[in-house]
Each structure stands twice: as C-alpha cells, then as structure tokens.
C-alpha cells in the first residue's frame, strides 16, 4: 500500500525472545542467549511481509519499565517515546512477552499502553508454555487488555507466520496514535498496574498443576552452597583442559599444513626469487599461519561459552559469584559483562550498559580488559607449549591446561584486586548497588544457534587474521628484511634491518623484564591486536633462522628464551594493554579520552611491574 517502509519496534521485558524474533524476521544473527540483558544496543533490520509491505524493525534492549534506569534501558525508552535522535517513533510497537512468565511483561504492556502508540502483544515461547500445560485464553486476554494478541515461537521455522499475517492485517488498517499520557510511573502506579496484570492473568491464564521441576532440580545442585562452587570450578577446569587436549590434533594438522605449504612455495618458486620466497614463507605463512593455527582453540572456548549462555547457566554463575564480586566493590550486574570479556573485552565493555550506576559501570569497564580474552590464547598457548611439558599430574590433569587455568585465575584475581583498590582509594564512600537478577528457566541449547555463533566467531578470527594481522605482518616482514645485509656481512641478515634497529633501541627499556630485541619488535605491532605478537615473533625468528625456524616457532622459542623470559612474557600478557580496539571502545563508552588513558597507563604499569618481579624472581631461583 504505502511505499515508505513501516517501522516496528520490539519492546519487552528482558529475555523474552525479542532478538530471536528479530533474527527470525530479518534473517540476521544477532546475539541471543538465555539470560537477561543480552541486547544493549538498538539494532535495525528489514524484511518484507507476505503481502509485500516493506518493514523496518528495531530490536531493543529488554526493560521492566520505561523508567530507563541504566543506559541500555534509556535507549528503549527514548525510541518508544520518540525522543531518540534520528529515529522516528515506531508505527507499531510489538510488545514481546514470554508466555510462561507473563507477570512482569503484562505490567509493562499496561505502562506502554499509556504511551498511545499502536501496539500488538506477542506471546512468544508458546511452545514451552504448551509443553508445560499453560493454557491462555487469548480472546479474553485481548479483550481485557484492549490489544490484538498473537502467539509465536521465535526459534522455530514458521513460528512467526501468524505474527506476519497479523502484522499485515494490522498495517492494512490505518491507526491513529493517541497522544502519550506516559509519565514516569510512581510506586503506586507500578503496584496498581501489577495488580491489574495479576488480575488479567488470573482470568485468562490457567497455570499447570506441575511447575517446571527440572529447573528446580538442576538448581538444587548448581546453586547449592557447596556443590554449586564445585560445579563452577569443574566447568571452568574442563574448559581449559579441553582447550589444550581437544584442540591438539586439529592444531597439528593445521600447522603441518602450513609447513607443507611453505615447503611447496619454497620448491615451486625459482631459486632466484628469494625476496618473494621470503615474503610468502616468512611473512605470510610463518606470520599469519602461526595465528590461524589457533583457530581450533578459539572454536572450543566459544563452544563452551555459547553452550553455557544458551543453557541458562550465566545468571547462576552470577549468583554464585555475587558475594565475592561485592567484596571487591563490584556491582551485582558486573559479572556477566566480565564473563563476556573472556571472549573479548569489547562486547564485555558494551555489556556494562546494563549497570545503572555510572561509577560501578566505570569500575567494571576499567577492569574488563584484565579478563583473559580469546586473543591471549595464541600467546599463552605458544609459550606454554614451548616451555611447559605436556605431562599429566595428579593422574588426570594436563599440566599445560593447568598452567592455562592459572593464567585465567591470575587475570580474574588481578581484576578483582584492581577493583577493590579503586574502590578503596577513589570511591570509599560509595556502596555498590544491589544485585537483582531474574534467573531464567534452563533451556536446551539450540544446536543451530550455537553453530551459527561459533561460525561467526571463527569468521571474525579469520577476518582479523586476514586484515589486521596480515597488514601488520607485511609491515614487519618489510622492517625485518630491509635494508638487506651488505655483501659478505657476518651473522643473520636481519641484524642489519630496520626491525633490529628499532628492537635494539627499545631493548634497554625492556631488558629489566627479560625481553630481548625480538620481543620488543613484536610488542609494537602487538598493540593492534594481541595475536599479532605471535605472528611477529614467527616472522622475525624465521627470517633470522631460515627455513628450519619457519616450521616450528615454538621450538625456536624454547631454544632462544630462558624460562625466566618466557614467564615474564606470560605475565606481561596478563596485564599489558595490548589492544587498540579495546582502548577505542573504552573511550567511546566513557565519553572521553580520560579513562582510556587511565586504563592504558595503569595496565602498562602493572604489566611492567609484574613482569619485572617475575623475571627477577625466576632468575634468582635459577630458572634458565
């Protein structure tokens, strides 16, 4: 009918399936997980209805009320009220409810009605409601609320057909938006609305005689004061063991593949093309290849995280850790952002938007980069594999996995310590805000969405390898190859290159922490992304050492570095601010350069001090 695209907005309480609906409608793959507060940004997408209307749909952060008490909830409020810069008010508000859990959403519906926008209620997760024996009298509810109602199963193909049909019907009629009578609800308003919502539920919904006992049974173990902590420790432990043991065969395959490729290039290219040969073999294969080898580990760690998120474990982990987090002065909602930082600090820092108090949010942002992100995995693994024997201790524990676990623990401990110190010195008078979190029912993880999630992560990793890391590698190869050694020069040609000059210039600064000039060269491009350091070491040592070195960077390190240097390097990577994108996000999310500079400096100082201690201690203990 109309040519201009119609605007829908998905609004609703957290974790009701708004993003799942958005993905189903638009074919996107935005992040979906089974805990409240996944979406913290406005995401826009488009689709065409069966009758050919083109529609723009906005996915919004979940909220219990339009009050807007944290930055993510403010986005939703501003969109709905038409206050958001550059966004028109939605033509139709789709209020999404979890059909098994209507109380809080229905109250939100009553609040939204006062805004006066045309609205439709979507009872999502109707599959679960049916399975549990919840029956909903849709006509009655629709009549009570004065709104059209449609049911949906966002995660099933065809599960939104009715929604599409009703949206078409709805849009075919013209709708007058009433003037908004919305004002920030008072406590009395909220209570009255909740009573009304409860009344409607009482007349329209029949609850099953048996509630979801499975969630209760699982929780009686997972949230048990003692067993719960054991379960958490076991999950983390298995995760890091898996990163080492399960990934091994695939990594060997990849690494053999790259060596063979390098050899092939070496054999195929004419002998006289040494420069091209060196570029392909040392720059590309030893550099970028040495990072791609870690893909299996990245896949495994994301597989674990995504499974836990989809199952519904994250909110439980937050429950278990709350006291410890609170003790370190952290906000109750800080746990999930910090946990997301295990994948990457960037989404972790974004996720702090769920924290209402600006100071608490800032503390969480400042310590998020200390959580061990996946970009550290290549660095850690490389050094651990080179220096820690793959022996089994206590009968079943892989020693390498244990050291990895230790590095993660060190990251977590330091993050908590920094938070406690910041609180003590900066904000002593400030009590952390409370922890109040809905614990969602467990859901069977959906293989398809996990597969898509892992695939997206793998793609991102490879994309980085092909862009940031590749371009850094070209630069490093160039610096390490030119100027070329004069004829008849002694020693490896790299000693005459720019890289060596830069490295030697920096070496005095880094010698106290046990770093040689090759490491110094690797650290600078390593600012772009942590994995680059691995690639840079690969290139520098392979240019220096020739063909044999190109094959196995780990073995070269084992020969060239002392154990003290290796330990110092590991410790450096726990703390060092080696990631430009994280710093950029901190700047954006805190609205200025100040906290970015603070983060950079405090991490740098910590890294240097900790490496200095480690190196000197290790030397004193005679670890060569």
């Amino acid at each position, binding site marked *: 009918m109309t040519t201009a695209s119609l605007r829908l907005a998905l609004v609703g309480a957290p974790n009701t399936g708004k993003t799942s609906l958005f993905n189903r409608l638009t074919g996107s793959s935005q992040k979906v997980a089974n805990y409240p507060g996944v979406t913290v940004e406005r995401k826009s997408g488009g689709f065409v209805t069966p009758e050919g209307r083109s529609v723009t749909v906005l996915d919004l952060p979940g909220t*219990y*009320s339009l*009050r807007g*008490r944290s930055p993510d909830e403010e986005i939703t409020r501003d969109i709905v009220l038409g206050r958001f810069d550059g966004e028109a008010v939605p033509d139709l508000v789709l209020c999404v409810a979890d059909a*098994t*859990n209507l*109380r*809080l959403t229905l109250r939100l519906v009553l609040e939204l009605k006062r805004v006066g926008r045309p609205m439709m209620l979507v009872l999502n997760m109707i599959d679960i409601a049916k399975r549990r024996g919840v029956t909903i009298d849709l006509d009655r509810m629709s009549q009570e609320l004065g709104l059209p109602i449609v049911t949906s199963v966002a995660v099933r193909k065809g599960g939104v057909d009715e929604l599409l049909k009703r949206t078409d019907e709805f849009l075919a009629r013209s709708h007058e938006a009433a003037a908004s009578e919305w004002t920030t609800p008072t*406590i009395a308003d*909220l*209570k009255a609305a*909740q*009573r009304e919502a*409860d009344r409607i539920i009482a007349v329209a919904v029949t*609850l099953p005689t048996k*509630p979801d006992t499975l*969630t*209760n049974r699982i*929780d*009686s173990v997972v*949230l*048990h*004061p*003692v067993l*719960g*902590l054991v379960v958490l420790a076991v999950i983390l432990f298995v995760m890091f063991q898996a990163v080492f043991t399960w990934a091994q065969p695939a990594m060997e395959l990849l690494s053999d593949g790259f060596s063979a490729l390098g050899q092939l290039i070496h054999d195929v290219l004419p002998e006289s093309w040494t420069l091209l040969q060196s570029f392909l073999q040392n720059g590309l294969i030893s550099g970028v290849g040495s990072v791609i080898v870690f893909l299996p580990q990245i896949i495994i760690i994301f597989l674990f995280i995504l499974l836990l998120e989809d199952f519904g474990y994250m*909110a439980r982990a*937050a*429950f*278990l850790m*709350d*006291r*410890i987090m*609170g003790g370190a002065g952290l906000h*109750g909602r800080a746990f999930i952002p910090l946990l997301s930082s295990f994948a990457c600090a960037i989404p972790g820092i974004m996720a702090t938007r769920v924290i209402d108090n600006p100071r608490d949010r800032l503390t969480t942002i400042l310590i998020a980069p200390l959580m061990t992100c996946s970009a550290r995995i290549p660095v850690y693994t490389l050094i651990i594999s080179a220096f820690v024997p793959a022996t089994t201790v206590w009968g079943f524990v892989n020693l390498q996995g244990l050291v990895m676990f230790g590095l993660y623990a060190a990251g977590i401990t330091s993050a908590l310590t920094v938070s406690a110190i910041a609180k003590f010195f900066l904000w002593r008078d*400030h*009590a*952390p*805000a*409370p*922890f*109040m*979190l*809905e*614990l969602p029912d467990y859901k069977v993880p959906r293989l398809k969405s996990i597969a898509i999630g892992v695939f997206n992560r793998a793609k991102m990793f490879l994309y980085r390898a092909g862009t940031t890391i590749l371009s850094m590698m070209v630069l490093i190869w160039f610096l390490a190859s030119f100027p070329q050694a004069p004829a008849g020069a002694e020693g490896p040609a790299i000693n005459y290159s720019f890289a060596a000059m830069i490295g030697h210039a920096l070496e005095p600064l880094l010698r106290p922490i046990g770093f040689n000039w090759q490491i110094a060269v690797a650290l600078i491009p390593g600012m772009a992304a942590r994995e680059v350091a691995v690639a840079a070491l690969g290139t520098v040592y392979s240019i220096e050492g020739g063909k044999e070195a190109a094959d196995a960077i780990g073995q070269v390190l084992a020969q060239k570095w002392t154990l003290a240097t290796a330990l110092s390097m590991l410790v450096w990577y726990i703390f060092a601010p080696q990631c430009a994108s994280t710093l950029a996000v901190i700047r954006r999310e805190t609205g200025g350069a100040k906290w970015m500079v603070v983060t950079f400096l405090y991490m740098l100082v910590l890294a240097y001090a900790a490496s200095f201690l480690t190196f000197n201690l290790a030397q004193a203990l005679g670890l060569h």
Partner: protein
Amino acid sequence: MTGDPNSSQDNPRDIRLGHADRGFVGKIIRLDALVTGSSLSAQELEQRLVEMGFVEGARVEILHEGTIRRDPIAVRVDNITIALRRSEAMAVIVE
C-alpha cells in the same frame, strides 16, 4: 493495617524476607524500604522490588542461598525466580 504502624510488630508471624531461611514459604504483606542495609534510597529500592514483581499478596519462597553468609538468595516470586541480596530482601515483609 496501614493505619497502625505497629501492626507488623504485633503480628509475630510477620518477618523480613532478608531474615528468612531457605525453604521459607510465605506471602508478601507489604514493602518497607526504610531500614535496610541497601545502598539504594528507600524509594528507589521499593520501586525496583515492585518492578521485579514483589508486590503485596505475591507468594514467595526462598529456593537457594549463597555460600558466604547464606547470601544472596534466590526467591520464587509467584512463578519467576529472582536472585537478590539479603540486604535488599530486608525491605520485603512477609508472613
């Protein structure tokens, strides 16, 4: 009930949810956010509790408690589960 400020003390069965043990089942009588250990103002705390479904008449049950000082607690409020700290649960008067 609201007319007599002492009514809750008068009824010995009324307690604060923050003091209740695991396994406690009861009904919310009212909210009183004035005397809690929470860092939030009384008004803000009460508002948040109401937003999470803690309103008069709702059935509550303490399902789980944390390891350290039995804090936080997981409370079933009608048919959803909310995790919160005992200091905030002090504002909820139950019987």
